[in-house]
């Protein structure tokens, strides 16, 4: 967002809420503060107060469309808002999303206003017992999420694969296109990994589900050793549930160890009724490395071309993908051995 818009943000929020909540008077905005969390979209926390009644929380968040790493083609703010709205009617805990605003006369770009849920995000800093308890709750929620009737929830707009084999093929095609669009320098490791992915596309998918894309710690708010809210739905998709499970495995196994991770996977299978397909999980573990680098390429592109010349864009684009690039290099080399 432009600096003058940021400076005017309290006034913008006051005017916006006054218009959106016609039954209330004297809207006041306080404690506007930039959220230090998140790598993609800019967010501000704020508190609102008013006279009168409105079905809206008073601790709120403003999320701007401006994104360091995602383009609307792959992950728009509107898409995320629609997923949140659908999930509000389910047992998956998400913050209430009140408005998606596309009129640029308010803040120069699209934005969402949503409830600010109380909770912590620093999973690594927790005692092991708390980590286990939160993950135990999360795996229950993941099983529920993968059993939601996404068609009935109106989420078919995310792009439903026509059958099992199409699940992986669609995501691979989408992110190969995104990579080619964003790359400024040739990256043979990306090309070699794409060749690996195309050779190893899973064909057996037991159920086509609503996936989150990025799941688990880092995307969760927790409180009292329970998941308070699942925060990040911009990468939501309809496809193979093993994708989410692979992401969780990749992120969490190094923190909790093999035994605890395997217990979570077994528990997920019991609760969801979905068979665990290890080959699919391996495919999605590699795919997610490719995806993470591809998303970061958009940040490099935006910085280098002057579209978003900010150091947070540079750091995300260059530093964040390093471990994924090393991982991809290792996988294609092992595959050839």
């Amino acid at each position, binding site marked *: 967002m432009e600096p003058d818009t940021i400076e005017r943000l309290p006034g913008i929020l006051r005017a916006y809420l006054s218009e959106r909540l016609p039954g209330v008077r004297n809207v006041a905005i306080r404690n506007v*503060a*930039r*959220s*230090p969390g998140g790598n993609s979209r800019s967010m501000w926390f704020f508190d609102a107060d008013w006279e009168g009644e409105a079905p809206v929380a008073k601790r709120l968040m403003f999320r701007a469309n401006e994104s360091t790493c995602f383009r609307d083609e792959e992950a728009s703010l509107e898409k995320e808002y629609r997923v949140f709205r659908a999930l509000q009617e389910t047992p998956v805990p998400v913050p209430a999303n009140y408005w998606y605003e596309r009129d640029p006369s308010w803040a120069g770009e699209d934005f969402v206003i949503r409830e600010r849920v109380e909770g912590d995000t620093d999973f690594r800093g927790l005692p092991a017992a708390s980590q286990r308890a939160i993950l135990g709750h999360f795996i229950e929620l993941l099983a529920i999420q993968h059993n939601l009737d996404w068609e009935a929830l109106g989420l078919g707009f995310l792009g439903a694969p026509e059958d099992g084999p199409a699940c992986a093929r669609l995501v691979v095609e989408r992110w190969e296109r995104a990579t080619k669009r964003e790359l400024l*320098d*040739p*990256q*043979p*490791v990306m*090309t*070699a990994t794409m*060749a690996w992915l195309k*050779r190893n596309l899973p064909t057996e998918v037991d159920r086509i589900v609503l996936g989150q894309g990025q799941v688990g710690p880092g995307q969760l708010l927790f409180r009292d050793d329970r998941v308070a809210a699942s925060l990040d739905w911009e990468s939501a998709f309809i496809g193979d549930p093993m994708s989410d499970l692979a992401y969780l495995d990749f992120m969490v196994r190094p923190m909790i160890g093999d035994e605890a991770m395997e217990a979570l996977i077994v528990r997920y299978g019991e609760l969801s009724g979905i068979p665990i397909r290890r080959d699919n999980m391996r495919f999605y573990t590699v795919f997610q490395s490719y995806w993470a680098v591809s998303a970061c390429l958009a940040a490099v592109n935006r910085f280098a071309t002057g579209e978003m010349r900010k*150091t*947070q864009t*540079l*750091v995300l684009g*260059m*530093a964040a993908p*390093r471990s994924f*690039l*090393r991982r991809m*290099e290792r996988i*294609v*080399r092992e595959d*050839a051995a």
Partner: protein
Amino acid sequence: MRPTPAEIVEGLQYNLRADLLPELESAWAKRIAGNMLWALEHLKQRLTGEHALAVEENADLRAVLAGAASARDSDAALAEALAAIDLAPGEAREWPASEALIAENARLRAVVDAIVEAFPAHRKGAAEDLWREILGYIARQTERDGALIEVNPD
């Protein structure tokens, strides 16, 4: 000229660490200052190490292309897959200017990338040897890029 660009960057790093960061109160501002420290360290690594790494990359890419030309001559399937790719490594020369060297490396890297994209899925003999050579290059290239990027000023 002294101070060198790298020395000036060190001065900026000092001011950020010693004078600005301790005065910052919001978590967001501290995060951005940390990002700026990373960018300054990356810049210093680029100033001091990028040229030598690019010279190494240039030699590496030229060797891969020479290997590809040789393998293509002895493998019919590979020859067919790589038929549309110009494997000429370009002129061998000294590289006093980084910009021209980096542009030449980007050109050579695009050729290697095209080879990877066109490479037959089923390979043996010379093609298999070339594939391993390419993977070796990719490993070294990942290391070289990592040397400039995996910096941690704090």
